[in-house]
């Protein structure tokens, strides 16, 4: 069978768009703009112009000024730089950090690093659908709060938080807001300037760009302490030779990323998946249908052992929780926060669509999943109720 492989793991990473690949190649070899963008010679200056053009495109797509965009190696680094950088720059003795329990590990682990330094933490819980309310943020903020960090789109369940309302509250309380928008670009409009977000993490590889390049949006008046020492690149905020091909690739990625056009298309594919899977007995949607990112669907199949479910579907690229999970994943901290038991968390799958997903892919996936779920349910016929809870 030479069917093309079924790839429904676009929230983990995406195939790079051909136009992006082309733009990257033009910055690699002898014939292209391979020079160091910091070099004074004409080749260096040309590379620098490409970098600045990419910065402008990215800024434009998120309603920011080019000068607010600092390139990093990805959203993980951006999250670290935003949070550690903000705390290192604030010398008050009592400092407080507010975040949620459903952030990506790169925020949660950084929070833990802050805790180890004696910084006060508040973790906001989400409700059973994964939503954190602006009121919760308002209640949590104190005079000592340095930063609130809340993700835009959750990478496991696709829930969109109301960043605009949360930003308003942070502004009223004069507290900085950091947003992890790794999953947003191209799917949900980002209006960083309009919303009044202070810091925002971006990455290219979730939106058909290259892995290993990201950016941190740093609003004009935000002071950060750099976390990587060694050069005056990126306003002194991020040392290291600028990777022209990566930056240009990210620029092209954001140029191509059009929520107005792509969002509805992705949502349609996601809905096709859900329409098909919904027919399976007992299946449940993890997340919030009213605040759902267009590309992510997280579904629970009660009564199926998670490891067996994963092995049965091992040939199709779907994900159990996040991609960084190890072989037998810990039950996802996000699904646990929704109130799912370990077993139900384990028997959940994330399906995520992208630019290269075809309607036919959704049908094949529904069929394969339906077949395997039925097979494993038959095998477990007669099992006690706890197997489905």
């Amino acid at each position: 069978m030479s069917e093309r492989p079924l790839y429904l793991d676009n929230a983990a990473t995406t195939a790079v768009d051909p136009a992006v690949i082309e733009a990257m190649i033009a910055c690699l070899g002898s014939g292209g703009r391979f020079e160091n963008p910091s070099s004074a010679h004409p080749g260096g200056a040309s590379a620098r112009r490409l970098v600045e053009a990419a910065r402008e495109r990215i800024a434009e797509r998120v309603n920011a000024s080019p000068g607010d965009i600092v390139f990093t190696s990805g959203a993980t680094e951006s999250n670290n730089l935003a949070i550690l950088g903000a705390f290192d720059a604030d010398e008050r003795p009592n400092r407080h950090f507010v975040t949620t329990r459903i952030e990506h590990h790169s925020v949660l682990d950084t929070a833990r690093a802050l805790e180890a330094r004696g910084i006060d933490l508040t973790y906001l819980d989400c409700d059973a659908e994964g939503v954190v309310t602006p009121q919760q943020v308002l209640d949590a903020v104190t005079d000592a709060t340095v930063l609130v960090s809340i993700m835009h789109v959750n990478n496991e369940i696709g829930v969109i938080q109301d960043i605009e309302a949360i930003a308003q509250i942070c502004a009223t309380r004069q507290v900085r807001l950091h947003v992890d928008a790794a999953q947003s670009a191209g799917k949900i409009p980002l209006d960083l300037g309009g919303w009044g977000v202070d810091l925002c993490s971006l990455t290219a590889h979730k939106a058909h760009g290259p892995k290993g390049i990201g950016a941190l949006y740093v609003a004009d008046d935000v002071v950060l302490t750099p976390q990587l020492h060694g050069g005056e690149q990126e306003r002194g905020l991020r040392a290291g030779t600028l990777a022209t091909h990566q930056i240009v690739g990210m620029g092209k990625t954001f140029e191509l990323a059009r929520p107005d056009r792509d969002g509805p298309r992705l949502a349609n594919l996601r809905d096709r998946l859900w329409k098909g899977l919904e027919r399976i007995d007992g299946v449940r949607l993890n997340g919030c249908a009213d605040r759902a990112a267009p590309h992510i669907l997280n579904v629970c199949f009660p009564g199926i052992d998670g490891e067996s479910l994963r092995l049965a579907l091992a040939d199709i690229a779907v994900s159990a929780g996040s991609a960084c999970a190890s072989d037998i994943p810990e039950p996802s901290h996000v699904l646990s926060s929704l109130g799912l038991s370990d077993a139900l968390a384990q028997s959940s799958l994330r399906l995520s669509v992208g630019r290269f997903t075809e309607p036919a892919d959704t049908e094949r996936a529904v069929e394969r999943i339906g077949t395997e779920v039925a097979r494993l349910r038959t095998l477990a016929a007669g099992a006690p109720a706890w197997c489905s809870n």
Partner: protein
Amino acid sequence: MDYSSEVLRRFDLPPGAGELPDGTRGVVRGEAEDRSLGIWVRFDVRVQEGLIRAVRFRLFGCPHAIAAAGLIAEGLEGQPARSLSCLDLRKVASDLDLPAEKYGKLLRIEDALLACWRALGAARD
């Protein structure tokens, strides 16, 4: 998780999965479960003239458990009934190349077969 080819084969087509018609002569049923390990298993065994004629199972659990139940079920057919009480778990583990953290589930599978053995005794009594 890496799976041995034997586990993969038996997971895809678990031989012996199913049930034996309820109330058939010589059929006993044994069950075991461990919620903390995430396993439930039930065997139907038909014994005639002291020999195990058929073994079927239902199972909720991981691929290793499914493969182990299948391997054991297959191996028991044609054996004397007392085999139900003296499984060579070490051999099962080695045939399937099971990781150590899965041994607990083997013990529950053994429990279910011991329950069959006891049921057989009860039937004889």
